[in-house]
């Protein structure tokens, strides 16, 4: 049960002078139980793409298969609630969706909407808040009185409390400090490893793609131009050169070493793996 886009196009404001094609004939699959990164320049259509995953946007042309549902163009889908329970979408800067008086109430809002009883919803909310690292002392706080990072955590907990199988995140670490964004990424990886959730995230940070993700989808001007494993992606020199991205430090380091005449294994991902190779090839003095 993966997610598949078949010839999907999407146009904003069709039949008006402002019509704008955001997706053009997109064919891509997102594998279940993996962490997939969606990357691309601003305005390339990443956000439009992810909004198709829980049918917030419906394709103008083509069809999207999500779990056991097929969403076709020109067909009004029914029972979207069910789909949205299974695919949780966290928007960019999700802290703006907080509205309840207390954090606990706000996080319980999602599960309540999906038909859980009040007690169950509160229970789910507490679990979700625990996952994002907001302890009991925050339960009765107003979400508006918290710091930016805490708000972000509370908002993400609001989606986690729904306990979706697929978690889609649109730039979840934007505007967070390095430590906070690292912790946030760790959290998603844990969810993937422990609870076997499919994670799909939009990001600009190649370090995150390199360190945390398994697959990568590259989107440019509304078209998917590349889709493969992260390892293959960072070894595809041609592809990397055609994109204006800042490569992860390790990849940059490997490139520099190769320029100096060293042969570095394609699979090595850490300094610990690279250093012995360099030492072996120099085969002299040091150590």
């Amino acid at each position, binding site marked *: 049960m993966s997610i598949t886009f078949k010839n999907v196009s999407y146009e*904003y*404001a069709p039949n*008006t*002078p*402002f019509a704008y094609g955001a997706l053009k004939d997109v064919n891509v699959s997102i594998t279940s139980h993996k962490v997939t990164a969606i990357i691309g320049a601003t305005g390339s259509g990443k956000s439009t793409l992810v*909004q198709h995953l*829980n049918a*917030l946007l419906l394709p103008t042309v083509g069809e999207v298969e999500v779990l056991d549902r097929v969403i076709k163009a020109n067909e009004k889908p029914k029972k979207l*609630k069910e789909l*949205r*329970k299974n695919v*949780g*979408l*966290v*928007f960019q800067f*999700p802290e*703006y*969706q*907080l*509205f309840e008086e207390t954090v606990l109430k706000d996080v319980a*809002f*999602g599960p*309540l*909407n*999906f038909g859980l009883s009040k007690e169950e919803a509160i229970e789910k909310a507490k679990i979700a808040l625990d996952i994002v690292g907001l302890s009991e002392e925050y339960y009765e706080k107003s979400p*508006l009185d918290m710091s930016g990072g805490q708000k972000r955590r509370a908002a993400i907990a*609001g*989606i986690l409390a*729904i306990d979706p199988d697929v978690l889609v995140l649109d730039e979840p670490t934007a505007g967070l400090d390095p430590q906070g964004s690292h912790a946030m990424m760790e959290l998603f990886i844990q969810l993937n490893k422990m609870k076997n959730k499919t994670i799909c995230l939009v990001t600009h940070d190649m370090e995150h793609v390199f360190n945390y993700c398994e697959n990568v989808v590259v989107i440019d001007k509304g078209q998917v131009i590349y889709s493969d494993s992260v390892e293959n992606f960072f070894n595809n020199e041609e592809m990397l050169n055609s994109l204006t991205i800042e490569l992860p430090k390790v990849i940059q380091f490997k490139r520099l070493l190769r320029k100096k005449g060293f042969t570095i294994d394609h699979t090595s991902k850490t300094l610990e793996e690279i250093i012995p190779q360099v030492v072996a090839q120099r085969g002299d003095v040091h150590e």
Partner: protein
Amino acid sequence: MNNIALGRYLPLNSVVHKLDPRFKIIGMLILLVAIFLPAGFYGYGFLTLFIGSVVMISKLSFKFIIKAMKPMMLMLVFLMVINIFVLRTGYVVFDIFGFLIYSDAIFQTLYISIRLLLMIMVTTILTATTKPLDLTLGIEDLLAPFKRFKVPAHEIAMMISIALRFIPTLIEETDRIMKAQASRGVDLAEGKLKEKVLAILSLIVPLFVSSFQRAEDLADAMEARGYVPTNKRTRYKQLKRTLKDIIMLFIVVFVLASVIAMVVLL
């Protein structure tokens, strides 16, 4: 949400687009006066013809005008219903199972509809052919003579231009929050009344919070740039009147005069 046509500027290239906003505003006011005269059948026919041809000259499509009309449709239906129940003069046109519908009710509704249609056409011509910023400059200039009576012309213009500037932003924001809450299971279409109230609340509270935040940020940014509303300031963009503006004004005055003539003579 992005399909709102009312009050939207359309960047086309026509004679009407190039007219001086001050003259366009005056022209619009004159036409509005003409529309509100009890001009009768011929008068409204004449006005419709005139305003329709201005729409054509502005290169606007009638589809766009109809789209701008859409939000008013409900109001028109409402008016129609009230008129049918309240106005009981004239002769009986329909007799539906003993319920009588009188001619005056129908004519009254028709007059109001045509007036509304013309009003929307005229105002749409103004807003669709004039950049919001030019519009506020025009308003500021037109209000300038009233400064003597302590009318804060510049402040009013600034408020209007800020309000106009933030309409698209707010629409975008609303759209975003709606989607975010939809992802959390909010369904504005279905559900019990209590759920619906909560759904609307989940939309309005974040919208207010971010609006206040934006307002505060904007105020700070303006202050940081040394903005003081009462200071005398020069303007980068100068409005210029041309011969075309004078001609336009003459035509509009002529239209008003003809409608008055029709009211008096016919």
